[in-house]
């Protein structure tokens, strides 16, 4: 995975310096590479393949919320593998999957990049419904409706600054809610 690793490391460094386009490419590329490995792990654990996208989303949230724990002087691959493994093990355990599934290859082998499956209700939608109203409105406006901060702020009657804070808190809470689900 060295080529992807180099790309991701470079893109993530740009992203952490504020380059949104680089971050977008980095996350999408990671998602497509994670998808097949996670799908394999999920089916091996005896769970429905449709759970895989939930796990991919949990991993992406963790990558986002914990990216400051990556040492930018090193390649990002080992860090991403560790995060992906940790989140996958956790998700499989919560869903009552078989234990002891080998998980070494979630990002380590070269699968064909996989597309996101067709629309369905994900875990994150249910977690979104449980967010406090302000955070839910912020995440929905930016993520689902694809609004800009200024559009969303005027529509929701709030300031851009408050909206940014609500979005950040909402994302952190989504990750916790997913993790605490039993």
């Amino acid at each position: 995975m060295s080529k992807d690793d180099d790309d991701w490391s470079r893109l993530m460094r740009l992203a952490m310096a504020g380059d949104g386009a680089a971050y977008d490419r980095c996350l999408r590329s990671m998602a497509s590479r994670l998808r097949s490995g996670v799908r394999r792990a999920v089916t091996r654990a005896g769970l429905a393949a449709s759970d895989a996208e939930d796990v991919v989303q949990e991993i992406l949230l963790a990558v986002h919320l914990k990216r400051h724990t990556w040492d930018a002087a090193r390649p990002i691959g080992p860090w991403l593998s560790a995060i992906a493994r940790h989140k996958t093990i956790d998700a499989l355990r919560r869903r009552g999957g078989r234990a002891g599934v080998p998980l070494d290859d979630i990002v380590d082998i070269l699968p064909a990049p996989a597309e996101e499956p067709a629309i369905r209700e994900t875990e994150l939608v249910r977690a979104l419904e449980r967010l406090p109203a302000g955070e839910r409105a912020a995440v929905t406006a930016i993520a689902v409706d694809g609004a800009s901060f200024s559009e969303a702020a005027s529509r929701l009657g709030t300031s851009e600054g408050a909206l940014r804070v609500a979005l950040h808190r909402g994302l952190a809470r989504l990750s916790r809610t997913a993790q605490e689900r039993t």
Partner: protein
Amino acid sequence: MRTDDLVRALVADGPIRERPLAVSLPAFAAVGLVGTLALFVVVLGLRPDIGAAAQTVRFVLKPVEMGLFAALGGLLAIRLAQPGSSTRGLVAGLAVAAGLLAAGVVGELVAVPAADWGARLVGSNAAVCLASIPLLAAPLLAATLWALRRGAPLHPARAGAAAGLFSATAGATLYGLHCPDDSPFFVAAWYSLATAVVVVAGALAGRRWLRW
């Protein structure tokens, strides 16, 4: 929510705001240290003969050993909360620190007649030691665990235990300035026991609060 939508929200959330743990953990620990110092001044204080004691090897060994453990424990906590970081060097360092503690014990075995070993081991205030080190560690442990919640420990109990090791031995470094017992026997037995209590508390707290 589609993964596409999620990515859009993550990108919108913008550039990084969190400092790396190597920055934030020492900052949090400094806040905890204020509480620990306050407890030390109010509850314990320096021993009266500190000037004379500081001339002896036995006394000086205490802060050196405990300070070494604290530095290694703090670094270990940071590494354990950063996926992909190696902890091997630090674990080797801890073995060296334990070796230093053992060397002190061997030195004492040679220097002190066997008839006095018991008295040196029991010391004059083992119970105060067992109570004081966890007390001094408490503010540091709370602050360190709070900092580690920003990290991504793959093994929350281990990261909590490292936080406990750091907090207990940092507290013990201070406690050594109060404690009238300087024998390496006393330090190896009671300081270690008090530290073990805090390490276990840290591991339990970590398992509970450091999951992510």
